[in-house]
């Protein structure tokens, strides 16, 4: 499976994603400069975290106009897999591949921490590496991660099973909490088709025991299994 990682000026998790897909999972990975528009060689596109174009105007607001993102929309519509992490999630909502918006954290501070994230069920290839209901420990690092949407959108997301990841609002001994005030504790969602996913937690930062856990690795492994036929 060939991964592509979009690189905007200001992206800063692009190499971290590549480290996982190419380094750990040994999959071919191409860094895609934001001005490129031919993504036809890619099976899976990751829009990484960071501060694309400085996050000026509004997080992800400018990135949506880049040629690479326009092609990403086409790829998504054609059914290719797209994952937006953190700033990537913000970009996917700005460009309309995912509903809702990410606003300033409720306490107005940037927050970097590990949080408890529960995996919901569903058929999205992105969560096939997890048992529904399992609780992951994932890193977060964002200033604008508070998921918001109008009531109808929220209801549709819930009814369609498009909420894939939810912050554990009150864990027992780990003292987990919703870190940013997201509605319905939403940490990550997918589109109706399930091929496009956006999430604030960083699964790529939780892929090695030496650097803080491995709970994110199954996300990438799951997608490999889902796409590459067994045998």
């Amino acid at each position, binding site marked *: 499976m060939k991964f592509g990682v979009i690189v905007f000026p200001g992206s*800063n998790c692009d190499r971290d994603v590549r*480290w996982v897909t190419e380094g750990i999972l040994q999959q071919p990975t191409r860094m895609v400069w934001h001005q490129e528009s031919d993504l036809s060689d890619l099976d899976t596109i990751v829009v990484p975290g960071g501060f694309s174009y*400085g996050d000026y105007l509004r997080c992800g607001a400018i990135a949506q106009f880049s040629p690479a993102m326009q092609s990403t929309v086409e790829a998504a519509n054609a059914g290719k897999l797209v994952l937006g992490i953190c700033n990537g999630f913000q970009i996917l909502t700005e460009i309309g591949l995912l509903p809702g918006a990410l606003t300033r954290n409720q306490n107005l501070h940037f927050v970097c921490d590990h949080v408890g994230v529960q995996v919901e069920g569903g058929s999205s290839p992105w969560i096939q590496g997890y048992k529904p209901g399992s609780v992951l420990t994932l890193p977060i690092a964002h200033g604008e991660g508070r998921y918001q949407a109008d009531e109808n959108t929220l209801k549709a997301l819930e009814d369609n099973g498009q909420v894939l990841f939810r912050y554990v609002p009150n864990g027992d001994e780990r003292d987990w909490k919703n870190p940013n005030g997201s509605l319905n504790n939403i940490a990550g969602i997918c589109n109706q088709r399930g091929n496009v996913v956006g999430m604030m937690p960083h699964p790529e*930062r939780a892929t090695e025991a030496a650097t*803080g856990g491995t709970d994110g690795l199954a996300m990438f492994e799951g997608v490999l299994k889902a796409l590459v036929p067994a045998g």
Partner: protein
Amino acid sequence: MTTAPFSPEEIAAEGIKPEEYEDIVSRLGRHPNRAELGMFGVMWSEHCCYKNSRPLLSQFPTEGPRVLVGPGENAGVVDLGDGLHLAFKVESHNHPSAVEPFQGAATGVGGILRDIFTMGARPIAILNSLRFGSLDDANTRRLFEGVVAGISHYGNCVGVPTVGGEVYFDPAYNGNPLVNAMAIGLMETDEIVKAGASGIGNPVLYVGSTTGRDGMGGASFASAELSEESLDDRPAVQVGDPFLEKSLIEACLEAFKTGAVVAAQDMGAAGLTCSTAEMAASGGVGIDLDLDKIPEREPGMVPYEYLLSESQERMLFVAAEGREQELIDIFHRWGLQAVVAGKVIEEPIVRIWFEGKIAAEVPANALSDNTPLYKREVLAEPPAYAQEAWKWSVDQLPSCDASGIDGKSWTDVLQTLLTTPSIASKNWVYRQYDHQVQNNTAVMPGGADAAVVRLRPQLGASEEVGYGKAIAATVDCNSRYVYLDPFGGAKAVVAEAARNLSCVGAEPIAVTDNLNFGSPEKPIGYWQLAEACRGLSEGCRVFDTPVTGGNVSLYNETLDASGTPTAIYPTPVVGMVGAVEDLSTVVGQAWQGAGNSIYLLGVPISQIATNAETVTLGASEYLAQVHDTIAGKPPQVDFDLEKAVQAVCREGIRAGVIRSAHDSAEGGLVVALAECAIAANQGAAITLDAAEGSRLDTVLFAEGGARIIVTVAADQATAWEATLTDKLPNRWQLLGTVSEDDDFTVAIAGETVIQTTVGTMAEGWNEAIAQKVAGDVAL
């Protein structure tokens, strides 16, 4: 000679003293013009030329088998083996942060990062060392919140993890906070990029952002006392753009790899003036620069403004002739400015053109090499404040017994210390920093005594999976120790830094230092500076950690309304890096399992009375917080013991025997134990014998003694004790056992003196700073 074309006030406004003006005139053979006067003003500031501190800095050890680049370049570089080269340096942004905390701190981070990637290294970690006044003061809260937000803003966006640091609060810093940032980078180019210009006729490239009127004369501003007026001097504070810096990092590293860059220098303090002068002087050549080529942020700027602007995110390159377009294309692709603005000339002068005329013409070394030097007399006797403080003895405290002191139980005292902002958890701070980006942070902030970052080249991927090397880093300075005893205190700073590295199993390698002091023009200020430098030198020699560079920030004084200057505590911050050969052996400070045995390495309880200088309540946090007393002599460092304890700790960690390690610092033994317990969310039962001749508070809260608390699995305890008896005879003791539950108890001679729970301790410790900040209701 004709009379000066400037009034004495105009000369003084550039930070130039009358005798220095005379010197300038004799060097030029004429009076300087306005632009030249400004150039001398910034370049002869303490910040740029170290005129007061250079004679003292010369005593630092700067060489060693691992040192590739020592002081004088943008950053020091050390060799970690296997082709890995590490660049690192610390720098201060104190004055700007006092005036405009957000941008002051943000641009401090930006500046130190540029020092690193100018060398061809990719920044892989940031640490910072911060000092503020009391959090009970509303202005301090404003400064604290602003500084943390500024570091967060810049570091997070630029994509370099902020992995560690230290924060202290003390009224001595009211109005003059210290913001020291340390950056670490891994060389990504084959050759270390240096600053010396060479190749007559080679083009000089200006790259990065535009030049505007921000940060005018920041270097001079940083080299004078803060006053009521300087709070209005906001134009002297730069404005940072971390997004541009991120692009600049990528573009620079890409450019260096083409081999077309001959030399590079970032534009930090004194902007174009400093970068041209330093590149020319260190290359023994001259630079001819045309200001009309410089991309300007606003029209109508005059040479003085171009030359003194400290606009951020700018660099100067010398390119190989004929390859400039190649470089310009790279910068344009990243959306950055890049123009040929001058050339290298043979004559060793900096010649500045503006609108077709020469605007300034100054010998390069007059600006950056052959600069003024002040060797001052050091007080023959310690000043009165120190002598007075040293008279303090523990006998002046009220008597105490197992029930406590002054009606407070020892449990209460412990809780007071744990909720003291300088000791309490800094989670309110580090949760605002992205400490994980780049995927190499092996220890989360608060998890261990030093930050640990895995080393791996970031370009290319697959072949390095499982790479096991790492570096550890720490920034330290107990400035109360240094205030009360600059020589002994500075030695203790180095010892503590090395101890912190040893607590994760890292071998200390090298040091970068940031000397934050008051005015050197005052006898006490200079005595503090001189004595601290002597202490640092000795410490660095003993630990074999050469100083590879650093920064000096003097004049950290605030003038109160009546004009009386108040100096900060002398604060020589030591940033130390250490090598970790096998990342999998690194340990943190949290207990690792119930039933594990807890040991004290260093001076045992029974020997406190006979080591009263080494283990003492003098200068301690207990004395300051519980008895409101800043006095006594701080613990004196026993270097032999320090080295022995640290070596045993490192060996135990590498052998996999030690499961957790934490040094005893502010708050002493019991606070250190509590911190281990809180980190693990698991209690401990500590049982001690009576300590002959020692008061209980000394047993519980005295500082010093080269002490480290380690835990070892019960089934390895016998072998471990044999090792200790062999390697550290009589300098260790068994303290107790990690509990199943969260009860935390300390018993002495069979009598329980502290009884609490980890939950209680953790709540106070975790929330103390957030609660103080929340006191700012007038937001």
